[in-house]
């Protein structure tokens, strides 16, 4: 059962990811990214991270991507033109293959025969645990992040507001 679910959502994630890369239109890419995120949320649930899954939906899919789509619509960004081809364009594919290969090799020799992921094995991912960890051990980082958010809001307003002149 777990395996089937994993296969399903992993397949969705990978397909959507590929779609993100190959699609010419930003909206298609955005939607496929949403797909990836939804699939990842399901995988988080499999891994026992229920709160994170919900947060993934609310924050990423619900807020950030909507923002992206909003901007895309606002700028009415069309399909991209063929720009000048920089040297990277040719080097990219081999680079990526090497990259994936390396990581695969690393994982393969680092965790051979690693334990199986069984749904329900990990029960520490509830909102309660995360909340308690967040407000005791990680209190300072949490506060710092809140300040960061504040700064981001101000920056966004300053950048995007119309110049009154």
């Amino acid at each position, binding site marked *: 059962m777990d395996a089937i679910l994993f296969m399903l959502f992993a397949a969705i994630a990978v397909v959507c990811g590929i779609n993100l890369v190959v699609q010419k239109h930003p909206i298609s890419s955005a939607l496929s990214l949403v797909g990836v995120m939804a699939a990842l949320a399901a995988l988080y649930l499999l891994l026992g991270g229920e709160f994170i899954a919900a947060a993934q939906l609310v924050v990423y899919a619900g807020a950030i991507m909507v923002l992206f789509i909003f901007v895309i619509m606002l700028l009415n960004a069309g399909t991209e033109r063929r720009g000048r081809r*920089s*040297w*990277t*364009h040719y*080097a*990219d594919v081999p*680079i*990526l293959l*090497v*990259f994936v290969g*390396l*990581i695969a*090799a*690393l994982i393969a*020799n680092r965790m051979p025969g690693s334990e199986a992921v069984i749904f329900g094995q990990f029960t520490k991912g509830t909102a309660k645990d995360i909340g308690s960890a967040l407000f005791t051990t990680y209190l300072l980082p949490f506060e710092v992040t809140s300040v960061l958010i504040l700064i981001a809001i101000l920056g966004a307003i300053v950048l995007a507001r119309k110049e009154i002149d």
Partner: protein
Amino acid sequence: MQLWLIPIFPLLGFVLNGLLGRRLPKSAVNAIACGSVFLSFLWVLKVLFGANAFSGGLETVQVEKYFTWIQSGTLSIGVDFAVDRLTAVMLMIVTGVGLLIHIYATGYMAQEGGYYRFFAYLNLFMFFMLILVLGANFLLLFVGWEGVGLCSYLLIGFYFLEKFASDAANKAFIVNRIGDFGFSLAVFLIAMHFGSLDFGTVFTTVNGMPVEAHAGWMTAIALLLLVGATGKSAQIPLYVWLPDAMAGPTPVSALIHAATMVTAGVYMIARSSAIFLHSAHALDVVAIVGIATAFFAATIGLTQFDIKKVYAYSTVSQLGYMFVGLGTGAFSAGIWHVMTHAFFKALLFLGAGSVIHALSGEQDLRKMGGLRQYTPITMWTLLCASLAIAGFPFLSGFYSKDAILAAAYEHAPWMFWIGVITAGMTAFYVFRAFFLCFFGEYRGDLGGDKHGHGHKDHGHGSHGTPHESPPSMWIPLAILAVLSLVGGYLFNIPKYLEPLFKAPEEAPGSEWTMYVSIAAGLTGIGLAYVFYVLSPGIPQSIAQTFAIPYRWIYNKYFVDEFYDAAVVNPIVDGSRSLMWRMIDASGIDGIVNGIGHVARALGDLVRQTQSGFIRSYAAWVVMGAILVIAAMAITGGTR
């Protein structure tokens, strides 16, 4: 018990006054400053009554752990506060006397500039002092120690526009650095040897040890602690900063340089009595330093004409007494003297301040005199203080000083005799100041022009005729007067501190020491009366007959000049010629500039890669990642 509330109130006062004080009216600043200290005083009372400390409770230390501050290896230092009877005494002194002096200062500083700044510093000082006495480990003690040092620096240099004030501040700060260096070394040694800084663990370990065990360690730690104490408590050889510290406003002299901060050294030694008791030599050193300082400072005090200088040297000498008490094993007697001294010396300084206030900033005894009809309250209160310090029978000073002298006699008779002589001198110079100030007729100029005076607090009013101080000043005087009259009788500290320190056992048939010290005190007073009231000519003639020793003493044995010649000037010249010209100018600057050139050359080189195309940057990044991963895959990385 919520001990943390005690230091928090002054801290809040500091924050409020320091941030908003400039905009607040004076009344608000007063309310914040005094109110915060009053609140912490109330909380101290609540805590002590809650632990019914005054009715036989609080026999054992009560610790409150708040959070772990430093955790490195096995050494774990927490922010913990502890209160036991010793702390209780210190808390009462600090908050009580501190409160009185705050109230006094509201009147004394009324015409000063930087009003809010003054009270902000004062509150900060209270905060650090409370940390010092409340801290449950050596590091917190050290924090408070440094903090009060900082505040003392800020407050001595309160009139930082005057050169002498800032010089005095720097002097105090630098001299204290020497002591603090010793203290920090001691703390390191303790951490090294005991693996902990908590008073509880350290002292239980020490008490667990046989007396002679680790004698070397104990002596080293004790002596280094003593170095720190001599710095903070102005003992030989580091006493030189205290007299100059009188450049600060008089309430500061009373609070910091008489009542509380300078006794921190005594408190620290008493706190770590367990360590000292394990090293007889260190105790002897303490006693000798103490007695030497007491005598030495007293002799200087005989000749000074600046009223605050006189009291400053008497402070040094009284601190010497306390050290004698500590060094002779009579810790409780030392603490007792801390308390009584806090009462009468604070009173002396406040009275002096009141006199200075009355004379619109005059500090020179030669320009005073005959003030008794102008400032009766000040006179009477000062009389109480002077009698108390002179060890007049059954006043506060009498009890503590007698306890110390008795202990000194038990320890070594010669110490006792020097102590007695010092007591006589103390009585003499205090009453010399008293008579010069209040008897005879007014030698100052009633015109009220204040030109040509030396350093002094500035601009109290503009009128020349002496005037009594406002109630906000003389009410604290009155309270302190009462305390210095009956304080020693009311609070029998040695009995109270029984659980911590064994009381010095009164050897049978040693009551005569008491009579001797009384006699010495009375003689001193009598001599002063003869010299400065009956026939004022005598001092001059004595000064002429013993011209050379007089000049020595009058110039404080040229110790400052000696220090300048021996320590200060070499350092200054060395740093100017060697450090600056050779090492800094040529060496370091050269290196820095060289680095700059190299960086520029590299920049020119690397700039070629900055094509401005984000994706090429990304490709670079990916390649870097690949390299890292490859390195991990090859080397195996860290499992």
